[in-house]
Every structure is written in C-alpha cells, then in structure tokens.
C-alpha cells in the first residue's frame, strides 16, 4: 500500500471513506500515519522496546475492532487515548495499581485551545498575556520567553540557563499551563 498517494487526504476524510465502504485499506493508510508516534508513546510508559512493539500491535487490533463497531470523529486524539489507556492498564497489571483512565472527552478538552481567546480583542489579550508572564516564577518566565519570544531551541535554552533539557521542557510545559490559567483568571477579572 503506497502511503504517499494518500498524503493529501485528511484523517477525517479517510475515516469517512472507511465508514462509507468499510474497506480496511483506508484504516491501514490512516493508522500507519501514527505508527511511529504510537511506538514512542508506548516506549515512554513501558520503557521496554519489546513491550512497546507488542502494545502497538494490540492498540492496532483494538482500534480495528472498535472502528468497525462505532464512529470516531477525532482519530488522532482517540488513538492517543487508546494507546495511553492500554499502557496504563498494562502498568496496572504489572504494579497492581489502578490507573486513572482517560476518555475521549477528556482528551478532546485537552486539545482545545483557550476558548475565550477567540472572543477577546487582540489588545486585551496582549495585556492579559503580559500580566500572566510576569506572574510566572523566574525559571518558567525565563524558559517561556527564550522559547516562544526569542525562538531558541531546548538545547540553546539549556546552554543559556544551565538547566538540563528535561528541566527546560518541564519549565516550558508548566509555564504554558500556568499562563493559560492566569490568562483565564485575568480576562475574567477584566
């Protein structure tokens, strides 16, 4: 099956084609777009190459069965959720812990951009962002500014600040999350 021929077709369109004629070839094209990412996600959680490969196969199998049974609208978020839940269940079986499983709605909400942004005018949004950045702790502020405004890569930021790459990633991710919370609060106050 040649993937390149279908590059111009979106995930949604491929799913529509599959739901129209139930031909598995559309699922093949769609799923193999995500093989590498799924392998990475399974590696992140399971930390073992063989387990990760087995898990990707099981995720594929589960996806094939479920896509035949019900309709999925956002394939990328859905397959990520299936893989993450599979790994969490596998870890639970190993460690005897009950994981908090994600559902499609949770993932969809996580994927949504800040909803209020669209309704706010640019100037108010800029004021809110400036105020929110000032509220971040020093490390997050430094990493967020270098990354988003000065367009430095993680490794450059690590060199400039002396933080490890992991710390840089974490300060940027947490900084972004805190910014979102602060902007929502500030815009509500306005």
């Amino acid at each position, binding site marked *: 099956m040649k993937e390149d021929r279908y590059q111009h077709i979106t995930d949604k369109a491929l799913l529509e084609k599959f739901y129209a004629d139930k031909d598995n070839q559309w699922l093949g094209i769609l799923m193999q777009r995500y093989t*590498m990412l799924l392998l990475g*996600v399974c590696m992140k959680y399971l930390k073992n190459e063989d387990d990760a490969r087995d898990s990707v196969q099981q995720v594929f199998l589960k996806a094939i069965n479920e896509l035949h049974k019900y309709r999925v609208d956002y394939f990328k978020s859905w397959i990520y959720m299936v893989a993450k839940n599979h790994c969490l269940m596998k870890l639970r079986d190993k460690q005897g812990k009950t994981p908090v499983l994600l559902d499609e709605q949770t993932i969809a909400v996580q994927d949504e951009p800040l909803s209020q942004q669209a309704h706010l005018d640019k100037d108010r949004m800029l004021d809110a962002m400036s105020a929110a950045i000032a509220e971040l702790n020093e490390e997050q502020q430094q990493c967020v500014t270098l990354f988003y*405004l000065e*367009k430095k890569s993680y490794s450059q930021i690590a060199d400039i600040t002396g933080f490890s790459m992991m710390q840089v990633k974490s300060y940027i991710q947490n900084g972004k999350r805190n910014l979102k919370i602060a*902007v929502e609060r500030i815009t509500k106050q306005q």
Partner: protein
Amino acid sequence: MNKDLLNILLNSNKDIDNQQLMDYLAGKLSEEEKHAVEMQLAENDFMSDAVEGLEIVKNKRDINVFVDQLNRDLHKKLFRKKSKKQRRKAVQQRWTFAAIILILVLLLAAWLMIVKYQRLRHG
C-alpha cells in the same frame, strides 16, 4: 513579538512528518528547525509523549525497522480481517443463489403440475 505572545496559547494541528521527527532525534536539524519541531512538541501532548519515548530507544536506527515491521503486521491483520469478511459474504451469496434456484424449481414443478392437471381435465 506581539504575535508571538498571542501564539503561546494556541494549539497546532500541523501534520506529523516522521522524517523530520527522526532527524530531530538524530540531532540533524539546525537550531531554527529544532525550534520549529519543539514548538509542535510544546503544543501537542501526543507528539511530546512520543518523542520522550523514542528518545529512550537505544539504537535510533531501530525505530524505522520497528515501524516497518509494525506496518507490515498491521496490513496482515487488516487483510486477514478483510478475507474473513469476503468469505462470509461469499457464503451468504451462495445461500441466496441456492434459494433462488430452489424457488425457480418449485415454480417450474408447480407450473408442470398445473399443465398436467388441465390436460387430464380436458382430455
């Protein structure tokens, strides 16, 4: 700068480019290209988790080998499933065909009996 400030909280739906990802993991990208990939990582949990996991793979060249194997297995699964479906469809079609033949035979038999009965009455 103002535009960049506003972009911080936007989420991206950019397409995933496996080759770019592999080049990123192999450290082959320029600082500018690295930043572009990292912007996607910061906006996309799926991709960010994946890169974190792929970084653990000892030999990065294995990643493409694993992906090719997984894709081959995927196609086998899909093809097997398709064959089962086709076999089921073929069995259904055979039964439909047999039912049509049976109905035609019964109709023919009924017609012959009617003709024979009419001949007996008139003759």
